[in-house]
């Protein structure tokens, strides 16, 4: 092959990497940000210019009045990945699952082991799965009711357990979706649930902001 033809192929490769690889994504980004800036930027939760997370990503909700997402092997890191380096049949996985079960039960003492969905005690694939099965959310309602009651009491508001519980039940059923039309199983997004709780607390003056 002649040198000229080789150089031509280099130019051909560089040109197409530039057009398809660089120009196309860049132009699409500019268009997408113009059309739907919220989704194009990653469905971020933004308040006065500060980003508090994304509706699509779980975080370590470190308060007992929050719905807990599925456990994460990466500590809810956005750039980490995976469910740990243990295979399903490794002894470590079995021990891990056992300790996650006892943690779930100690956090939610009203729950019996036969009511815990396995998803709630197994690491998610991404480490930031925001979604939990419907029953996983319902299991947490008694604990959250108590914690909310206590937090609101500390802020000088006495809200009855019954009304808190019905608020939580309503919130959960409002955000319940299926993971396939008709045939899928039901799940809820913990970020949406927790934002509803957060807004309740802020509205009642128990919290100042995010």
């Amino acid at each position: 092959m002649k040198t000229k033809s080789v150089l031509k192929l280099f130019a051909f490769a560089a040109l197409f990497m530039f057009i398809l690889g660089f120009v196309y994504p860049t132009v699409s980004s500019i268009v997408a940000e113009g059309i739907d800036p919220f989704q194009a930027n990653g469905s971020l939760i933004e308040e006065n210019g500060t980003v508090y997370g994304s509706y699509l990503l779980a975080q370590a909700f470190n308060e007992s009045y929050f719905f807990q997402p599925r456990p994460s092997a990466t500590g809810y890191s956005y750039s980490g990945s995976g469910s740990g380096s243990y295979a399903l049949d490794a002894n470590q996985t079995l021990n891990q699952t056992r300790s996650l079960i006892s943690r779930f039960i100690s956090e939610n003492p009203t729950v019996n082991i036969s009511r815990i969905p396995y998803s709630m005690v197994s690491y998610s694939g991404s480490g930031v799965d925001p979604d939990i099965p419907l029953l996983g959310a319902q299991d947490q309602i008694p604990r959250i009711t108590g914690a909310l009651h206590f937090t609101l009491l500390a802020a000088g508001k006495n809200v009855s357990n019954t009304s808190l519980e019905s608020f939580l039940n309503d919130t959960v059923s409002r955000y319940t979706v299926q993971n396939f039309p008709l045939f899928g199983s039901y799940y809820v997004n913990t970020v949406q649930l927790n934002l509803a709780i957060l807004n309740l607390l802020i509205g009642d003056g128990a919290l100042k902001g995010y």
Partner: protein
Amino acid sequence: MSYVSTESSGGSNFWATFFESQRLLSGTIIILIYILLLSIFAYLISGYIAKLYRGEKTWLDPVSGRLVNFFINMFGEDARKDTKMKEYFITLIVFNAAAGIIAFVFFFFQSYIPFAGITHNYSFSLSFNTVTSFLTNTDLQHYSDPLHLSYLSKTFVLTGLMFLSASTGFAVSMAFIRGILNENGRIGNFYRDFLVSVFYLIFPLTILVTIIFILSGVPQDLSQYVNVNPILSGGIQRLPLGPVATWEAIKNIGTNGGGFYGSNAAMPLENPNWFTNLVEFLSFTVIPLGSILSLGKVFNNRGFARTLYVVLISIFFFTTFMTFFAEYSGIPSITSLGTIFTGNMLGKETAIGISQTSIFSSGAVFTSTGAADSVLLAFTPAGLLGLMGNLILNDPLGGVGTGVLNIFMYVIFAIFITSLMVGKLPEIMSIKISSKEIKYSTLSLVTHPLLVLIPFGITMLLPALVIGDPNPRPDVISSVLYEFLSAASNNGSEVGGFVTNTAFFNITDGILMLLGRFVLMGLQLAIAQSFATKSPKVETGRTIETGSPLFALMLFVTIIMLGVLSFFPVLALGPFLSWAKDFNLFIGGML
């Protein structure tokens, strides 16, 4: 099994509750819906692909035709002449080498490039591995943190290579089919085929899928990352962002499969819900299956396409349901803990679920995509075996374009064997198959086992090469076997468990990927060249009818036998052994 009481399941009706309580049934239905939708869309696109293969007019001519002609004029005579196999193949190799060198330079020196905003450099072996892996349509990713890649590396280098490798694959399949159709000894021009693949097929579909992804919540912006203050807690986390939607689109349309984020399509930003999962599945299977179905129209032989469809879909059915049932049932040590177990959710996402994860993973190894919406390391042994079943057959449906080539190797081989058995003339599309084609097709069929088993044997003899795997021995064997299978078949999915970013695995995998792609392409183009000089004969009725159920059965048996015979011993040491251990299948305490 039913864990949703009727009054609580979010305003549901009777049927939704019924399906919620029957997860096995509803999972099966979901998988069947996926396969049905795939067949419909592949059938719809097959007519269009047939037109591309035959060089006929299409409705995209006014736009795409002009673009193709513009670039052909730009590159002059080189892009116009009708070439033979040798020149075609050299052009292809030089073109890919050029892209690889450019990519390597940008990747290896990414911290020196002004405005890149990145200080992280990749080692030589990791750069080599990453560039070969994106160049060969494999997308095995030994790097994991997207924060270490500059915007330029993510777009110009990696997205660029994803487009190039997919279009190269389709171009080769165009040349191969032209070889069978032509009688003048020429198989076409690489520039032209590449441009047609880009502007008539890959790019339009990518744009369509990008739009769907953007509308369903996949991010697409120019930033490298955004700083996040998690709710009610101190500490700032960096959330990597950027052109995710375009990356996802070409990743799937081009059967590439490398994720923008480390956890690939398990990351909710890449794959937020069931709808995107379905779109991803369809977009990485539709071109490979569509091109197989198009062969019926290309050769005016509907029966042939039907045979291929039936054989391939039965393999797909078998492996998918094996994975699904295994993942649904889990392993005894976990299921006996007493929680509500509706499937092995370790390493899977709630919004996608067991059945959709199974069909997605199975589809990703059935084609050469290798995308994953879950962690394969956490699969049950039998579930992993279902995935490996596809990999040992060198991804039966193949990637964009390469699927057609791979299946032809099996077809030629099966026709030859069947003809020998019943004493007929070995012919394909009325062209006589001679010893040369048999030689090349056999070579290309044994290349895959050789590429996998030799490095696998070496690695097993030198256990020090596998660093940091805490898992039981059979699982380690499965992971290492999977690693090489995935590299040699240009798939790119990964089980992991051990440290893959070592010089040994980076370089070995890189070489395997290059050989697994370009040696096979060379052999396949050589077959095309030898067909291109032959003209079809008049049907005599003394040949094997490729549309007959008997031939379908023979093809199926040939494909399965070749794969199983080459790999059964190692499969017995890996997934079979883990499976037997997990289910306590040993009699008398053996092992």
